[in-house]
């Protein structure tokens, strides 16, 4: 019991200690200790869970975060702990994710964010691992993910995707290997034969050479100078060593031919066959094919061949034939690289090797060849010299010797290594996208074949050199300070406190130039010595005395400087003054005024107080003027509010100039009119000027009603208010439609709105009479307030909607405006004349859903008509429909008739009717089927041919029906649906 208590204390202590840190992670040692403690006892686990849950309630995100980390660690390990935690999972989640609005995560917010993301991450992990066993985890996960729509990192899907990608890549590799295997199997015989032949030839050559060697022909050493230049010392070493071996056959002029052949063959053998054989072996070991027997036999043979080749090579070497191992190894390296390349060459976009690698070995191998094959050394030298500076420079390094070279080397600037060297002077193009940024198309489509030309690469790889400044010693000022010690400021020329920097001795006294050399040394010592200096009392006293002396001297100097400065300033002032005066006198006509002004300026400069008073006086005068004006206005009966509140003197003067009662009243009217226009804003530009008379007529009654009308304007939507008019406790009014929008708060005073009607205002509104809203469009009528709205819905002058049907065009206006709008904005065809003949062609007549909308405008009898042609679905049947709409009112529309005809191949459909007004919406007309409807089959028949293309010829005529007008024939608008 006691032990348990002890243990309990231990785990609690550990946990509390672990959560007290301010780090992002829990201290691993503490964590380990906690785990160790919990591992051995269930009661500990219970206690731990309890403690941790308690800590989660701590009102600090940092504590919660650390606690959560511990919970996660133990959660992944202990079953009992899981069971305990899962019981309170909702609590844990609300404490760590903070999804409950009444329980937000505590401060600090930065940690809270981490806490949340961590919690979500952990939850997903837990769900992945233990979700099967704990419904609660699944529920919590599901709730956060699907109900609260929190974003989870989606670990599983990511892992699956990576796995899938890897598998795909493996599959592709296998495929490539298999293809290679097939080709190898096909060409194996050929290869084998070739290799065998080569080996035979080599053997023969060797025999010849050996025989010669046995003969003991003295070996003439080739001229050292021949290859001295082109071979590095290392190679030469090898060469010398090989020469030392006496039993080796050496090349002579006699057996040069044989050697050449031998060399050729060896080269072939090593560079081509050995590589291909090795490649084959590696391929065979990796490939995974169904018939293992062929593979094994092939492999066996290949290994035999390889051994054979190696044996031959060795034999060659024994003979002393120098295919240096270095080439071999290099060659091998290269082939290795190439091998890798081969495997990946199909999908170079993804894993493609570094292009630098492809380029780099080139000069190297050239170099190698040049050094080993003396016979072709000349040629190689020339090529290598011409080909690359880099090669030559390395060669220069390689061949130690001539003093000129050494000199050159010592003179040559040392270039730091940089990426620009890896493709120095290369002429190959570089793939631009070889790394293949395939972040799920995040960067857009990757163009795999894009290349960067070599010159561009060179440009991009220009080496940048940084100018390095010589470090100069800046001497400290070292002037003695008042408080003792020396000034330690380091300035280049002059110390801002102590003037120019001069060499000083260790007490700060300036010394003459002669001793400046040792001065610097002392100077540098000073900071270190200072403490010792201060500690020494004698020294200190002396220093203080010196300091005092120095201070006095300084003061004197300052005094002198001041005097000099003052003198200078006085001089300048005098000069300025004289110049100004001269200038003033020089100006002729206004000289007096300017002079006066000049004087005043001068006076102002001399005596500021006076200026202030003068300006103040000026202000008061202007103010007086305003008050005067106001007074007079009031007397005349104009509203004082009409005065624009302007603060500037000049503006006042302006307004004062033309202030009379008539003027203000006219201004009033125009203002009001503008307000009107604003309120009912629509496009009514062309008529604006033509209704001046009506506006003037209205102006007669406007001034009386304006203020009331303003009162009846809703402060939110600025429309006129109609009952029920609401008001807040403070009496601010509001229309009923806006009341629902303002969330029960008065938009004016932000008070609670309540539900108070403003009956008084409603009554007042009732008594008002106002002109129609479309006054500006020509409606002359005046209505009582409430019937105005009703009238406005049927007013003949109300604007028309844009008849263009395809898009939801919201433009409104009168007919001329709409015609202009259709022509300019919708690019609609315009025709004049009362007959028409149109062809509608559509290449894909099957498409009905996004049907064609075609609109043509006709101008005849001084009116405008729109012809609509479109395709739509009538029930299930696809049809085409053509109908005419009159741009004007219904009553006028009845005066016209139109006919439409479509036909071909001896059949004809005719439609005759009265055009509908554009007041009826396009959809309404369409759905009433008031027009020429052509079934698609029929339309295709009329189009003739292969029924692939729609070619309809629609002819029509519009005429005026005289006798029918006024009979009300339009009342029977058909509805054929």
């Amino acid at each position: 019991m006691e032990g348990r208590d002890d243990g309990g204390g231990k785990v609690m202590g550990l946990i509390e200690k672990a959560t007290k840190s301010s780090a992002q992670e829990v201290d691993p040692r503490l964590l380990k200790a906690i785990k160790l403690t919990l591992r051995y006892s269930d009661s500990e686990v219970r206690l731990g869970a309890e403690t941790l849950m308690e800590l989660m309630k701590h009102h600090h995100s940092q504590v919660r975060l650390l606690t959560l980390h511990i919970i996660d660690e133990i959660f992944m390990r202990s079953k009992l702990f899981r069971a305990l935690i899962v019981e309170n999972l909702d609590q844990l989640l609300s404490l760590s994710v903070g999804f409950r609005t009444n329980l937000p995560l505590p401060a600090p917010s930065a940690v809270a964010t981490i806490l949340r993301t961590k919690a979500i991450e952990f939850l997903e992990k837990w769900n992945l691992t233990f979700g099967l066993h704990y419904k609660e985890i699944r529920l919590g996960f599901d709730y956060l993910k699907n109900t609260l729509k929190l974003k989870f990192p989606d670990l599983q899907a990511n892992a699956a995707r990576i796995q899938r990608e890897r598998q795909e890549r493996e599959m592709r590799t296998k495929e490539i290997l298999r293809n290679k295997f097939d080709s190898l199997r096909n060409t194996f015989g050929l290869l084998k034969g070739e290799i065998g032949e080569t080996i035979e030839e080599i053997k023969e050559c060797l025999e010849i050479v050996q025989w010669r060697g046995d003969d003991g022909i003295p070996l003439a050493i080739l001229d050292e100078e021949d290859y001295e230049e082109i071979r590095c010392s290392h190679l030469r070493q090898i060469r010398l060593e090989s020469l030392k071996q006496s039993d080796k056959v050496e090349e002579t002029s006699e057996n040069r031919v044989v050697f050449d052949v031998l060399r050729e063959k060896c080269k072939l053998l090593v560079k081509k066959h050995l590589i291909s054989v090795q490649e084959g072996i590696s391929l065979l070991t990796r490939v995974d094919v169904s018939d293992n027997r062929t593979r094994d036999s092939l492999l066996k043979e290949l290994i035999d061949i390889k051994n054979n080749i190696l044996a031959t090579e060795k034999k060659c070497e024994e003979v002393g034939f120098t295919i240096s191992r270095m080439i071999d190894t290099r060659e091998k390296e290269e082939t290795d690289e190439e091998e890798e390349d081969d495997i990946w060459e199909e999908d170079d976009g993804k894993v493609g090797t570094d292009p630098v690698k492809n380029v780099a070995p080139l000069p190297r191998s050239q170099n190698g060849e040049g050094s080993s094959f003396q016979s072709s050394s000349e040629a190689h030298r020339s090529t290598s010299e011409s080909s690359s500076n880099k090669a030559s420079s390395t060669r220069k390094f390689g061949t130690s010797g001539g003093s000129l070279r050494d000199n050159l080397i010592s003179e040559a600037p040392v270039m730091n290594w940089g990426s620009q060297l890896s493709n120095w002077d290369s002429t190959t193009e570089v793939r631009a996208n070889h790394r293949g940024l395939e972040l799920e198309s995040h960067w857009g489509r990757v163009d795999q074949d894009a290349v960067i030309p070599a010159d561009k690469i060179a440009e991009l790889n220009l080496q940048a050199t940084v100018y390095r400044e010589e470090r100069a010693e800046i001497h400290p000022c070292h002037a003695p300070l008042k408080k003792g010690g020396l000034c330690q400021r380091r300035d280049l020329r002059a110390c801002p406190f102590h003037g120019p920097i001069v060499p000083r001795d260790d007490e700060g006294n300036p010394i003459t130039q002669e001793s400046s050399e040792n001065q610097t040394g002392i100077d540098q010592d000073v900071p270190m010595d200072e403490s010792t200096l201060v500690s020494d009392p004698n020294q200190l006293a002396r220093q203080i005395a010196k300091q005092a002396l120095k201070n006095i001297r300084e003061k004197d100097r300052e005094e002198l400087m001041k005097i000099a400065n003052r003198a200078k300033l006085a001089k300048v002032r005098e000069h300025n003054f004289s110049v100004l005066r001269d200038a003033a006198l020089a100006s002729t006509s206004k000289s007096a005024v300017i002079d006066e002004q000049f004087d005043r300026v001068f006076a102002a400069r001399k005596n500021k107080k006076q200026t202030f008073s003068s300006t103040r006086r000026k202000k008061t005068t202007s103010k007086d003027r305003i008050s005067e004006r106001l007074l007079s206005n009031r007397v005349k009966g104009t509203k004082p509010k009409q005065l624009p509140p302007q603060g500037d003197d000049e503006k006042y003067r302006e307004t004062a100039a033309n202030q009379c009662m008539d003027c203000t009243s006219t201004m009033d009217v125009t203002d009001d009119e503008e307000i009107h226009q604003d309120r009912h804003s629509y496009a009514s530009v062309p008529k604006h000027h033509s209704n001046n008379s009506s506006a003037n007529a209205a102006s007669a009654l406007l001034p009386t009603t304006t203020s009331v009308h303003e009162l009846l304007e809703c402060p939110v939507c600025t429309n006129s208010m109609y009952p029920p008019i609401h008001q807040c406790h403070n009496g601010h009014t509001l229309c009923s439609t806006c009341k629902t929008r303002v969330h029960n708060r008065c938009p004016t005073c932000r008070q609670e709105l309540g539900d108070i009607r403003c009956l008084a205002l409603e009554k007042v509104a009732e008594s008002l009479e106002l002109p129609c809203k479309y006054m500006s469009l020509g409606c002359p009528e005046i209505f009582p307030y409430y019937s105005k709205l009703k009238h406005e819905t049927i007013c003949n002058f109300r604007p028309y909607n844009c008849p263009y049907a395809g898009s939801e065009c919201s433009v409104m206006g009168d007919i001329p405006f709409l015609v202009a709008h259709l022509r300019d904005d919708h690019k609609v065809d315009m025709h004049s004349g009362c007959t028409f003949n149109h062809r509608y062609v559509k290449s894909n007549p099957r498409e009905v859903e996004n049907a064609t909308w075609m609109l043509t405008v006709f101008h005849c009898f001084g009116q405008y008509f729109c012809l609509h042609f479109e395709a739509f679905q009538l029930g299930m049947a696809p049809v085409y429909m053509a109908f005419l709409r009159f741009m004007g009112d219904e009553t006028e529309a009845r005066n016209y008739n139109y006919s439409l005809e479509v036909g071909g191949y001896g059949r004809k459909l005719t439609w005759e009717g009265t055009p509908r007004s554009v007041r009826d919406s396009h959809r309404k007309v369409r759905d009433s089927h008031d027009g020429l409807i052509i079934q698609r089959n029929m339309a295709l028949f009329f189009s003739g041919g292969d029924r692939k293309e729609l070619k309809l010829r629609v002819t029509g005529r519009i005429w005026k029906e005289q006798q029918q007008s006024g009979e009300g024939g339009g009342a029977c608008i058909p509805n054929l649906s």
Partner: protein
Amino acid sequence: MWEAIQGRETGRVRSNSFVNQFKSRRILSLQLSNRKDFVSPHRGSVNSLQADLTEGRYLLSGASDGSAAVFDIQRATEYEASGLIAKHKCIFTVDKQHENGHKYAISSAIWYPIDTGLFVTGSYDHYIKVWDTNTAQAVVDFKMPGKVYRTAMSSLAMSHTLIAAGTEDVQVRLCDIASGAFSHTLSGHRDGVMSVEWSTSSEWVLYTGGCDGAIRFWDIRRAGCFRVLDQSVTQLGVRPPVLKHTAVSSKKSAKSSSGAQNRLKSLQSKHTGSQIIKGSYSAKASVEKSRQKRLHPGMLSTLDRATAHYGAVTGLKATNDGMYLLSAGSDSRIRLWDTESGCNTLLNFETGRIQTNKAIQLATSDDPALVFVPCMKTVKAFGMWSGKTRLMFRGHYESVNCCCFNSTDQELYTGGADRQILVWSPGGTMEGEMVQDEVAEDKDNWSD
């Protein structure tokens, strides 16, 4: 367990008691089921759940997104994690996309009590719709005067097919499926009616609980309500001795409603003699009846104003034996009423908070007698006669609206505002026995 089986074998234990013993053990071990998942198709809070009354096999759910769904409780549609988790997807749903689906939230979805061929949904769009289960088409609909809060059908009705509907409106309407019209309009409540419940002992008796805090008892054969429950009329213990109680109550009623009686008598005297004879006969037949009759048309206004809860009555549930009525109110109380006497039994249920703004659905189990009450995010099971919390079900992330106890499988289904339908099944019996090979076992994993 083996002992019990042996007892049953030798005949010491009666079959009934054996079953009950077993069942009660199972019920007391209810816990969140890891094996059974209902895949909720709802995108709103689940407001109503009911397992069908014939087989207990099909679960009907109604949710706030206007959708109702039917699940097969017994057969899972698919299994997850190599048969460890049975997923029950809904057999069908009717939702907003359905041509005559509800426009707004479904507040109540109930089965036709006789078979599973029909079900009834009531919605906030003012409609009650009766659906054919097989074709998933609405066959009858009733336009109600306001939002429908709760619908109920009598499980033992043999002679009528009435849907009792509690709506925003003060009147309770009975919709007759047979005729497609309202057959009754019961007025008496002073506010909307949140809960309606048919008696489980008489097919004619309907209990309704309103937002005015009153619980009214209606006999649908007569006009008016015959009883208003009063929380201050109490009895201690679940059932007092009959004699004493009737004496008390009759005396009280005589004392309190003498004026009414007089008026009633004078009223009756105006009627024909046959009626009087009938009335007197019924009065003779039983004291209770007479009291009912005397009270109902001109119930005293004081009595009429009695309340069962402070605030709205949000849930009603009659016990299966029909003797008691449980009510939940927005005052966060559960009350147990004796339906016979109409008294508050003064049992204290240890509820925490109960959702106040929405109707909740209670559930009961017979043996052990438990009441399942949704208390905000949890569901609590109280002992019906003790009021003590016996079990607590935590799992929902938002408040629970409804619970439904399936007595055949001893499972509890709960639906909450987090759109989930959770299954609580007896635990501990077979969980450990099925060893899973493929699935990683849940065990300790101490790496260090």
